[in-house]
């Protein structure tokens, strides 16, 4: 194995371990969040984001790492986002968590994985059509919030923290 592959494997094992310990990968938790009955996956995800964004922007400001924004291509993100939510609710897994769900014995994740492989193949076939239509409508490019609103990320991050902590108090108060 190359260094890339070894690094990916180790990172994945730790990530899968933590996803499983957080109990966020099973169908009940994924659909539970979409039914607004159990917000465990958002507690987990938003906590990861709060911690991660601070470290990433420190490393970025030190010039050690680069950012990799995904393009704000309006048609693609909006239609893709809606389609994903549609499939997510029925499937009850995400692409990353499906592999973990299989690891903790949820064998029906196999069908979700097969479906996603077929979906990827269909997308590859549709790509020439999509790239000249939906994906060609309006692309704002690879932008961050700080570029869009013209405020430094060190102002945005504390506001994000405050908003998310408020949300966490709401979750706990409502027993979600």
């Amino acid at each position, binding site marked *: 194995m190359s260094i890339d592959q070894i690094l990916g494997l180790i990172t994945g094992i730790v990530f899968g371990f933590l996803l499983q310990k957080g109990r966020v990968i099973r169908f009940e938790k994924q659909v539970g969040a979409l039914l607004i009955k159990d917000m465990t996956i958002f507690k987990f995800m938003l*906590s990861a984001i709060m911690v991660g964004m601070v470290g990433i922007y420190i490393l970025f400001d030190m010039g050690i790492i680069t950012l990799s924004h*995904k393009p704000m291509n309006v048609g693609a993100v909006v239609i893709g986002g809606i389609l994903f939510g*549609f499939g*997510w609710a029925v*499937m009850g897994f995400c692409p*990353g968590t499906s592999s973990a769900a299989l690891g903790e014995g949820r064998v029906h994740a196999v069908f979700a994985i*097969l479906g996603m492989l077929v979906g990827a193949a269909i997308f590859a076939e549709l790509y020439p059509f999509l790239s000249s239509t939906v994906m060609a409508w309006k692309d704002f490019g690879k932008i961050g919030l700080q570029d869009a609103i013209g405020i430094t990320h060190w102002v945005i991050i504390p506001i994000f923290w405050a908003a998310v902590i408020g949300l966490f108090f709401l979750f706990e108060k409502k027993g979600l």
Partner: protein
Amino acid sequence: MKLKTKDGGWNPYFAGALVGILAIASVYATTMLMGKTNYIGASTTFVRAVGFVEQVFASERVAQNAYFAATKIKVDWQFMLVIGIFLGALVSSLTDKSFKLEKVPPIWQERFGSSVTKRAVGAFLGGIVAMIGARLADGCPSGHGLSGVMQLSVSSFVALGLFFVSGVVVAALVYKRRAS
């Protein structure tokens, strides 16, 4: 605040914060060891995996496809990450005895009964739609939700918001029985 949840898991705020540390360590390690900053994601791997499968019986078609060409079909960092996720969850669930063979999850069973076939068809069709959406949006809850929002990407805030709103509407339609 409890460190253990009722189902024997770890407090989600704590486990999530550890994932945040993992994400930071990962961007640092990939930059140092691979020469390029890599962010955690999963859905591109499905493109590469199906590319390998298609190569077996339709290699011409794969070679000519612009999307496969742009994605590059190889077992890369992210591919091994997705395999690692499986292994990590397997080890974690076996060691804390939360591993459970499940064919039909409870919420599904309540609504659609215990038919394995129905659940298989639902998961399969849902998977197709979700993956087309994820590739169109250029990310899933890992790539957009975790990695993208961490970087304050505008597209990731929009994508994650839409994943959730669309998921909430569809989940309500699919799983909530109309009171008759």
